[in-house]
């Protein structure tokens, strides 16, 4: 990947499934973690795909496994984790990579985390941090790397790029540092961006700004993105498709524009309905009883959401529901077909 790709030469997302291997393919991923001496499931049979140039949102509450999925993809699972299933990037299995291959892989998948300060060395300058991968892995000469970094900073809306390169992380606000992280991620010209709650710790106005930058740049560079968040509306705003997770499993995959109007799983519908509306005060919010469970807490051999679901029937506890395709999306609800009309969210 030498030479600079101009923003205009966007790679268009492939037209249909099967025309090219997906950029990222997770298949049957199951992860067990040692917690207080015992192995506990945090992900169960998670499968998802991100095609080239496509933005996919991964939405869930606590225990849904969305962050674990990101870590599994980025090979950042904690020690002692047991992983089955596969994560394929391009045509290579990520689990088997090591050494130089692993470093190359890390350039191709750039990760952006929730707390930028935790992922940056506080005693090194911003410029050092940003150009490190370019200099050491890609062999780009330092002055060239610095110039690219300064240019990228202006693209994320930070003026005085050269001055900023010489600053330290503590001299920047959270929002600015997150923009720097995005710039740093884009510098190595990755094929996929893995963003794990990148705006959760930011003020809402800063969040809107950072999201706009992320969206704009991703499109102009033609990058794929897996965007992880707890906020359904946020994911729908910049992702083409949204995946909803619950208790370590994928429960719905849907085109973002249809997710609110026509969800395929009761959990998605309930999640959207539970949010208060900025337009109107509800007499009472439609709260989901109980609390979100992790994979190891969920009842075995049945639908994990059934205990909290308003539409639960005998079929729901009879066995573990599998994913069924419906109207271009996917749902893990046994009753998805018959519930379609009922699940549509009434506009506030």
């Amino acid at each position, binding site marked *: 990947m030498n030479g600079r790709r101009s923003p205009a030469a966007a790679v268009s997302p492939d037209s249909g499934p099967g025309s090219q291997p997906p950029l990222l393919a997770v298949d049957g991923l199951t992860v067990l973690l040692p917690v*207080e001496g015992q192995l*506990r499931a945090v992900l169960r049979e998670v499968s998802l795909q991100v095609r080239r140039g496509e933005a996919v949102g991964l939405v869930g509450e606590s*225990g849904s496994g969305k*962050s*674990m999925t990101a870590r599994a993809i980025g090979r950042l699972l*904690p020690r002692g984790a047991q992983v089955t299933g596969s994560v394929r990037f391009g045509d290579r299995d990520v689990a088997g990579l090591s050494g130089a291959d692993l470093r190359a892989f890390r350039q191709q998948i750039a990760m952006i985390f929730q707390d930028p300060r935790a992922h940056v060395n506080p005693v090194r300058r911003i410029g050092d941090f940003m150009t490190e991968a370019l200099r050491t892995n890609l062999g780009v000469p330092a002055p060239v790397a610095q110039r690219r970094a300064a240019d990228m900073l202006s693209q994320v809306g930070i003026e005085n790029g050269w001055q900023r390169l010489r600053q330290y992380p503590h001299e920047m606000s959270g929002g600015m540092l997150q923009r720097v992280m995005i710039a740093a991620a884009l510098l190595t010209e990755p094929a996929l961006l893995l963003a794990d709650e990148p705006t959760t710790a930011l003020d809402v106005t800063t969040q809107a700004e950072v999201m706009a930058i992320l969206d704009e740049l991703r499109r102009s560079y033609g990058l794929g993105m897996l965007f992880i968040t707890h906020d359904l509306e946020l994911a729908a705003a910049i992702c083409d498709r949204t995946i909803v997770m619950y208790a370590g499993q994928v429960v719905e995959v849907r085109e973002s524009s249809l997710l609110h109007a026509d969800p395929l799983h009761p959990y998605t519908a309930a999640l959207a309905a539970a949010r208060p509306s900025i337009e109107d005060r509800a007499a009472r919010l439609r709260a989901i009883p109980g609390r979100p469970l992790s994979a190891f807490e969920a009842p075995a051999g049945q639908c994990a959401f059934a205990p909290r679901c308003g539409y639960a029937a005998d079929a729901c506890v009879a066995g573990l529901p599998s994913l069924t395709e419906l109207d271009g999306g996917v749902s893990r609800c046994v009753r998805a077909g018959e519930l379609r009309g009922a699940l549509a969210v009434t506009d506030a």
Partner: protein
Amino acid sequence: MSTALRARTRTAVPVNRRAALGLLRGTGVAGMASAVVIAVGAVLALFGPLLAPYNPELPNLGLAWVGPTGGHLLGFDFEGRDVLSRLLAGAQSSMIGPLGVVVGAMALGTVIAVVAAWRQGPVDSVLSAGLDIIFAFPGILLAVLAAAVFGAGLTAAAVALSIAYMPYVARVLRGAALRERRQPYVAALEVQGASAVSICVRHIVPNMLPLIVAQATIMFGWAMVDLAAISFLGLGVQPPAPNWGVMISENQPGILQGYPLPCLAAGVCIVAVVIAFNVLGERLFEQAEAGRR
């Protein structure tokens, strides 16, 4: 932090005896072995003089330096006294001294740390500066000074060491106290109108207990070495009272004359107990740190 990882790093803060034993078990084989050694030492400290088979203080020069024979497992010292009996009897003063030092230093240090952390600002600055000044004095030097002023003896030495150790304790605990003090639950109690003293005593100090216990354990070892050194110099426990440090000193000539056992036996006792305290203390410290995160 993700839910699964958060569940993993929350450690039990001992709220009852069962949890405390669990904490002990968490220190590993080395930690538990050390706890056993310490327990033995404690028993000896309490009952040593009663367990001694022979009189530890009565000299019998005719038996001086005689090696292990018959019922005398470790032989006789330079004044013909049974070494084993003298070790058992000496356990008391050898362990009580460090205990006094630890209790004194920890009590003083905790109070100062909590006051500095609670008040912050100028009070904290002044206290910290005062601690820095005391810090500058090595423990043994203060003990020598105390001996010069008040005369030789265990009490003066122990008090001097307490004062010398106290700044170290206060430093370490101040950090932990500050962390607790800044937690929202403390603010919630303040808003309730609870007094500073009740919040510190009922909430801040108990949440620092793992660290306090770990610190005290490590400190015991240091105090033991320092007190033994002071007794060795003749400024602590005075002969003929049995004491391990004194025994090293008075039996030292025996090493060159070919009778190392009395001197070394006392040395081994000190070393064993100090190592046990150090190992256990460090393990407890690790647990305290891990539990905090």
